C-alpha cells in the first residue's frame, strides 16, 4: 500500500511539469507597517493569476503556460527587499519581478534587477526619484508623486484654494510632496507647513497654526492612519478649512475609520476611481467585488495591470526565461489596462490618468477631474 502511494506521489511533480509553469516573482508587504496596502497589491496579482490560469494559461509559441506567483514578504525593509530580489533572480529564476509598495525598498531592489538582467515592474511606490536612475530594467505602472501632485496643483490653482497649508510626513514622501507643490503653485501661494514624524499622533499644534494662519485649504501628505487622526482633530477643533488628501484617503476603507460628516467636501487625488462609469473600470470592480467581497482599490488595479502587462511582454518577446528580451518587449509595449493605456517613457515611467475625487455628504464620492469624466456622487 505504502509503495503504491509512494509511486503515486512521485508522479505528482511530473504532472505539474507537463502543464508548463512560469514563475513570476512578487515582492510585497505581507506583514509590517505596510501590510494593509500590501493586501490590496496581492489581491490584484491573485485576481490576474486566477483569470490567466482558469483560461488554461497564456499562449506562447504554440504552447500554453500557467502563471505561478512566487511572493516574498519584504516588510517595508530595504534589506529584506534586496535579499528577496536576489533570491528571485538566482534561486527561483523568475524572468520578471513585480510589486513593491515602499519607495525605499524599491530603491534597494532596482540595482539587483539590473545586475541580474531581470526586469522589475513596480505597481505602487510613488517616489519620483526611482525612475530617474537610468536603470533600464526598472518600470513603473503607477503614476509617481510628481505626476499626482501636478494634477492636483492644477486643480487647486483653478479652485483658488490658496494660501494652501500642509501637514506632511517628515520624510522623502512628505517633504518631496511639499516642495513639488511649492514649485508648481509658487511660494506666495503656500501658507503654514507642518511636518510630523512617523508614529506621531497628536496634530493639535498643527491645527492651532492652521487656524491662526487662515489657510483656505490644508493638504494632508500622509497615509491612512495619521490621515484619519488629522482629519478628526481638524474637524473636532471646529476648523472648516477645505481638506485635500492623498490617494490613501479616497476609499470605503477610509470612510470606515471616520464618518461621512467629517469627510464631506474633502478632495483627494486618485489613481483609480472604482465606481467610475468607464467600462473597463466597472468590469474590474465587479470581478474584484465578486472574488473579495469588497470595493476595488487602485493598488489592486495597478497590480492586476502589472501582471497582465508582464504576460503580454513575455508573449511579445517570445520567451519565458530571457529577462533581457522581456525588458525590451516591456520598453516597447502598449497595453490597455484597467487603469488606462500603459506605455513606458524612456525612463520606464508610465503615464496613467490621474483623477481628483471628492467626498459627498452620504459617504459616496464624485469625480471632479479630469473634466471628461466629471460625474456626481456615487461615481468616484
Amino acid at each position, binding site marked *: 500500500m505504502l509503495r503504491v502511494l509512494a509511486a503515486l506521489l512521485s508522479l505528482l511533480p511530473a504532472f505539474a511539469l507537463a502543464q508548463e509553469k512560469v514563475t513570476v516573482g512578487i515582492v510585497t508587504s505581507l*506583514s*509590517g*507597517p505596510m*501590510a*494593509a496596502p500590501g493586501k490590496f497589491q496581492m489581491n490584484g496579482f491573485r485576481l490576474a493569476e486566477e483569470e490567466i490560469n482558469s483560461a488554461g494559461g497564456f499562449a506562447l509559441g504554440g504552447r500554453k503556460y500557467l502563471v505561478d506567483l512566487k511572493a516574498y514578504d519584504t516588510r517595508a525593509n530595504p534589506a529584506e527587499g534586496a535579499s528577496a530580489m536576489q533570491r528571485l533572480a538566482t534561486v527561483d529564476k523568475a524572468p520578471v519581478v513585480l510589486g513593491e509598495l515602499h519607495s525605499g525598498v524599491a530603491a534597494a531592489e532596482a540595482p539587483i534587477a539590473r545586475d541580474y538582467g531581470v526586469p522589475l515592474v513596480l505597481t505602487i511606490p510613488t517616489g519620483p526619484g526611482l525612475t530617474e536612475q537610468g536603470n533600464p530594467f526598472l518600470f513603473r505602472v503607477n503614476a509617481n508623486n510628481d505626476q499626482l501632485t501636478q494634477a492636483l496643483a492644477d486643480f487647486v490653482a483653478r479652485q483658488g484654494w490658496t494660501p494652501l497649508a500642509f501637514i506632511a510626513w*517628515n520624510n522623502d514622501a512628505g517633504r518631496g510632496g511639499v516642495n513639488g507643490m511649492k514649485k508648481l503653485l509658487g511660494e506666495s501661494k503656500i501658507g503654514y507647513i*507642518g*511636518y*510630523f*514624524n512617523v*508614529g*506621531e*499622533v*497628536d496634530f*493639535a*499644534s*498643527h*491645527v*492651532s*497654526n492652521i*487656524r*491662526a494662519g487662515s489657510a483656505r485649504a490644508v493638504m494632508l501628505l500622509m497615509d491612512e*492612519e495619521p490621515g484619519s*487622526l488629522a482629519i478628526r482633530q481638524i474637524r*473636532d*477643533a*471646529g476648523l472648516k478649512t477645505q481638506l485635500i488628501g492623498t490617494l490613501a484617503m479616497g476609499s470605503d476603507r477610509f470612510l470606515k*475609520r471616520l464618518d461621512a460628516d467629517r469627510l464631506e467636501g474633502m478632495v483627494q487625488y486618485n489613481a483609480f476611481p472604482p465606481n467610475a462609469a468607464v467600462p473597463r473600470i466597472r468590469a474590474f470592480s465587479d470581478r474584484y467585488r465578486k472574488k473579495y467581497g469588497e470595493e476595488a482599490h487602485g493598488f489592486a488595479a495597478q497590480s492586476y495591470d502589472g501582471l497582465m502587462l508582464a504576460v503580454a511582454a513575455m508573449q511579445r518577446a517570445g520567451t519565458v526565461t530571457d529577462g533581457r528580451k522581456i525588458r525590451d518587449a516591456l520598453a516597447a509595449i502598449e497595453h490597455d489596462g484597467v487603469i488606462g493605456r500603459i506605455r513606458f517613457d524612456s525612463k520606464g515611467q508610465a503615464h496613467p490618468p490621474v483623477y481628483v475625487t471628492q467626498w459627498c455628504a452620504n459617504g459616496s464620492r464624485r469625480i471632479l477631474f479630469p473634466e471628461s469624466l466629471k460625474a456626481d456622487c456615487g461615481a468616484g
Partner: protein
Amino acid sequence: MPAAVLEQTINGLMSGSVYVLVALGMVLIYGVMHVLNFAHGVLFMLGGYVCHFFFTRVTGSYALSVLLSMGVLALVGIALERGVFRPLHGNLRNQVIASLGLILVIENLVVAVWGPNALQMKVPATEQLVPLGALRFPLQHLLVILVTFAVVAALFLFLKFSKPGTAIRAASQDRLAAMVVGIPVERIDWTTFALGTALAALGGALIGPLFLVFPLMGDAPMVKGLAGILLGGMGSVPGAVIGGLLIGVVESLSTLVLPTDYRDSVAFVVMVLILLARPQGIFGVRVRGED
C-alpha cells in the same frame, strides 16, 4: 493669538497629563526598588490594548474597561516584580538590562496577538465636543486632564495618610530602617509595582480612544515621562507631576513660534537648561545621599 495660546496650553496639559501618569509609575518604582523600569512605555501600550480588548470584545462600557485594564496590568506588574525584578534584586545593571529586554518581549507579543496595525476605539466621549469660547475640544481630551488630576490627588492622599502609603514612603526613604521597624518591604515592592503599572495602563487606556492603539504608542510618553522625572527631581513624586506637565505645556506652546518638527527637541533643551541651573531638578532632594 490668545486663543492659540489657550488652545496650546490645554493641548499641553493633555499630553503633559499622559507624561505624568507614566512618570508617576516610574518614580514610585524607582523610589522603592531603586530601579528605572524602561519597560514602562510598553506597559502603557499594553494597557491601551487590554482596554481595547475589554471595550470591544467583553463589555461595551469604557469606564469599566479602563478599570479592568488597570487591574490586569497591576497583575502583570506583580508578575514582573516576582519573575524578573526580584530575582535580580541588588544588581542594578541586570535590572536595567532586563527592563530593556522586556520592551522587546512585550512589544512582539502584542504584535503577535493583535497584529501590527493600529486599532480604533470608538468611545462616546471622543464624539462629544465641548465648546470653549471659539475653540472646541473632544470631551475625551478634557477627561484625560481631569482624570489625571483626580488620580494625582488621590495618590497624594494615599501616600500621605494611608498606612500602606506611609509604608511605601518609608521603604523609599530607607529600606533597611523600614525593615527594622517591621515594614514588610517585599510586600511593598510588589504593591508599588502593581500601582505603577496600573497608572501606566490608565494612561494608555485614556489616550487610546483619541490617538489609536498601536505598538509604538508608549515610546514618546516613556521618554517624555522620564524627562519629566529628571526635570522635577529624581525620586520626587510632586516633581514627576510638575515636570511632566511642564514638558507637555512647554513643547505645545513652542509650536506657536517654532517649526513643529522641533517640538521634541524643545522639551529636551528645556530639560537640559533647567538641570544646568539646578542639577538636582526642581524638587530634587538627595534623600539617599547619592551623587
